[in-house]
């Protein structure tokens, strides 16, 4: 017991020795969460749009006003001819264009179908795509209004338009702020990146420097060695979680509806996976460069397939199956559940079990690999 305590103390000392290490361990996660937490925002609003109104009637102006009063679009300029729209889209000055041909107002008044053209810049990120959806929706609302006026004229016949209202109630996040969804995700990513990086270099480093032999000849047992190596990282990881949760709730003001102790406990369960994975990388790498590349190789899928921004239900079936093998997927459900929905362990039981299974599996595997290497 004494030896292992001394060993742990040595590990902490070593971390502290490096002048640049402390800020990396504790300041960097906070800076990342602050910077990125404010940056992540997929709400579609103020999509820059260019207008080409060839009709210039009251009807066309009314039609455009519906767009620019909706809050989803802002007018970034007017094009004189439809060809002029090119310039705005090519230079990225606007990501949508509304073109209203001559005769729009006349057609509407005569009860003929009036035509408009909406152009979206498909090279830009999804906001243009969503913008297109909104634009069509607003157009539909406009035609509904026109239709209502048409009914008004035939009111004598006793006809009324059908009125069907949808009451959309949004749970957990009534204003539909994408930030509330994304910030807990960043929390999970920061925790994963920190612990995985620390562990993946930990043992291969001793190997590369030749100090692993010295550790082997000490009275430390293999499991004590691993425990001593990993325990400091668990502590660092937990401190980071607390700091980052503090920043997310107090500064970025993401609601935290569930229990904090539960969040910490499940973060610990999740860390089992990242530490185990880091250890695994450490055992299969010959030098630190390999360890680093291998860790990155594991981290990129974690960020992209976890459901952080790319919805899992849209992936091809094969990849949906793959995501079940990405432990951070479960952790995301857990943190979102605790943050936004305030759910407790009963609802999160499946995810907890999955994380536990993965964590223990990879952990035991790497401990066994490591012990074999020692002998």
């Amino acid at each position, binding site marked *: 017991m004494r030896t292992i305590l001394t060993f742990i103390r040595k590990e902490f000392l070593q971390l502290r020795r490096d002048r640049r290490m402390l800020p990396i361990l504790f300041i960097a996660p906070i800076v990342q969460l602050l910077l990125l937490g404010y940056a992540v925002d997929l709400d579609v609003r103020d999509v820059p749009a260019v207008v080409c109104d060839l009709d210039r009637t009251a009807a066309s102006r009314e039609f455009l006003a519906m767009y620019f009063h909706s809050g989803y679009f802002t007018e970034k300029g007017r094009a004189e001819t439809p060809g002029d729209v090119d310039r705005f889209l090519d230079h990225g000055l606007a990501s949508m264009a509304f073109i209203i041909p001559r005769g729009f107002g006349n057609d509407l008044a005569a009860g003929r179908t009036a035509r408009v*053209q909406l152009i979206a810049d498909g090279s830009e990120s999804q906001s243009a795509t969503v913008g297109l959806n909104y634009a069509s929706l607003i157009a539909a609302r406009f035609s509904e209004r026109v239709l209502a006026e048409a009914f008004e004229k035939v009111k004598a016949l006793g006809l009324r338009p059908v009125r069907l209202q949808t009451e959309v109630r949004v749970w957990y996040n009534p204003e539909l702020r994408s930030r509330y969804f994304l910030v807990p995700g960043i929390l999970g990513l920061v925790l994963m990146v920190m612990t995985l990086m620390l562990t993946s270099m930990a043992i291969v480093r001793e190997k590369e420097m030749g100090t692993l032999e010295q550790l082997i000849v000490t009275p430390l047992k293999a499991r004590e060695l691993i425990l001593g190596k990993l325990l400091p990282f668990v502590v660092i990881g937990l401190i980071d979680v607390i700091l980052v949760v503090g920043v997310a709730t107090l500064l970025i003001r993401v609601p935290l509806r569930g229990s904090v102790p539960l969040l910490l406990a499940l973060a610990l369960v999740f860390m089992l996976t990242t530490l185990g994975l880091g250890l695994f990388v450490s055992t299969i790498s010959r030098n630190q460069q390999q360890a680093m590349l291998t860790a990155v190789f594991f981290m990129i899928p974690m960020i992209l397939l976890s459901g952080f921004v790319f919805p899992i239900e849209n992936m091809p079936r094969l990849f949906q199956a793959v995501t079940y093998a990405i432990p951070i997927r479960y952790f995301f459900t857990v943190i979102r559940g605790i943050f936004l929905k305030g759910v407790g362990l009963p609802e999160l039981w499946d995810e907890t079990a999955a994380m536990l299974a993965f964590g223990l599996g990879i952990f035991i595997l790497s401990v066994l690999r490591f012990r074999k290497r020692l002998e």
Partner: protein
Amino acid sequence: MTGEPGGRPFFAGIRPVIRKEFRQIRRDPRSLGFLLFLPAFLLLVFGYALNFDVKHVSLAVCDLDGTQASRDFSGKFAATEYFDLRYRLSDPREADALLGREAVGIVLIIPRGFGDDLAAGRETKIQALVDGASAMTATTAAGYIGAIVQSQTMRFSLDVLERRGLNRLELPLAVETRVWYNPELRSARFLVPGLMVFILMVIVVISTALTVVRERERGTMEQILVSPVRPVDLVLGKTVPYVLISLVSAHVVLLLGFLLFGVPIRGNYLLLLLTMTLFLTGGLGQGVLISTMAKSQQVAFMISILTTFLPTFILSGFVFPIRNMPLVIQPFTYLIPARYFLATLRAVMLKGTGLGAFWKEVLFLAAFAAVTIVVSTMRLKRTGLEERPRRFLGGRRRVAR
């Protein structure tokens, strides 16, 4: 070539460093393999896996009416590719648990009397409960619901008129939507350039992040310092081989993007090559710079991941529109070289626009490459002279452990 006082051509000192670096790279085939093919592999996987289109949102319907009209109506939702009907509920209170454990994203509740109201021309109301926790999916899905309901309402209204023989009424508005640069709105089209930038950025920075600090940690730095190699030789010598390697790997990625995902290069290839070289050089320079700052490989690794991984993903405009960010955050995006490269890449590959549209980005990339290379050379000069005594202490520390 500029001559030096000693009469040695400027590049003469670099060649041995390059040769040595290449030999070292060759000796570690796994790392070389990672550098060459990891980007291609990741693009291959994620190009297929990822998209933003919100489709197949799981839906639960609670039909309290149970008439033909209500069944037709809810059938309209399940018939689209946007919604997958997963559950039929008999009690609206079941919605709670389903939404809570993310079993469904939307619960549609059709009230009793829906069919009668519709037939009698009374105002009817349906309810949609949306899981707002996944805000982006929820926003889009709520939009779909609105669109489906609206088109249904319009249909019903026109039906009413038609029954009275007033069928000369046409739909008031025909909206023709067109998508430029990416007509089928294939996510791959706009994701592939972004993925390329993200993956290349991470890979190039980490490929040089260890070069200098590794020599230092292993104690081979002294040997280099006593050799006639100048700091500038060292920095360029360590960067050039990786520029070549990463250019190869970037071309593999471009080729894959074209062959598998149909992402063309509409613009000028040479322009693309120029910006790509600048970007890769800058990224590698950033790696070297980190390497001159860190005391251990571990720290170098952490700094390079912390400065590239999430920042490139989030601040480059890859997924998150920069104009959406708060004004305080927006200046930080100018520090992300991926931002410029991504803008150029989208312009050249998808839009086919010329230099006129993005010369500013090219300038920024050139500045980024120049600054990282010059600063790391300067740092190396300084640490090479100053750190001698400290490194001696460092050596003793190693022995003590």
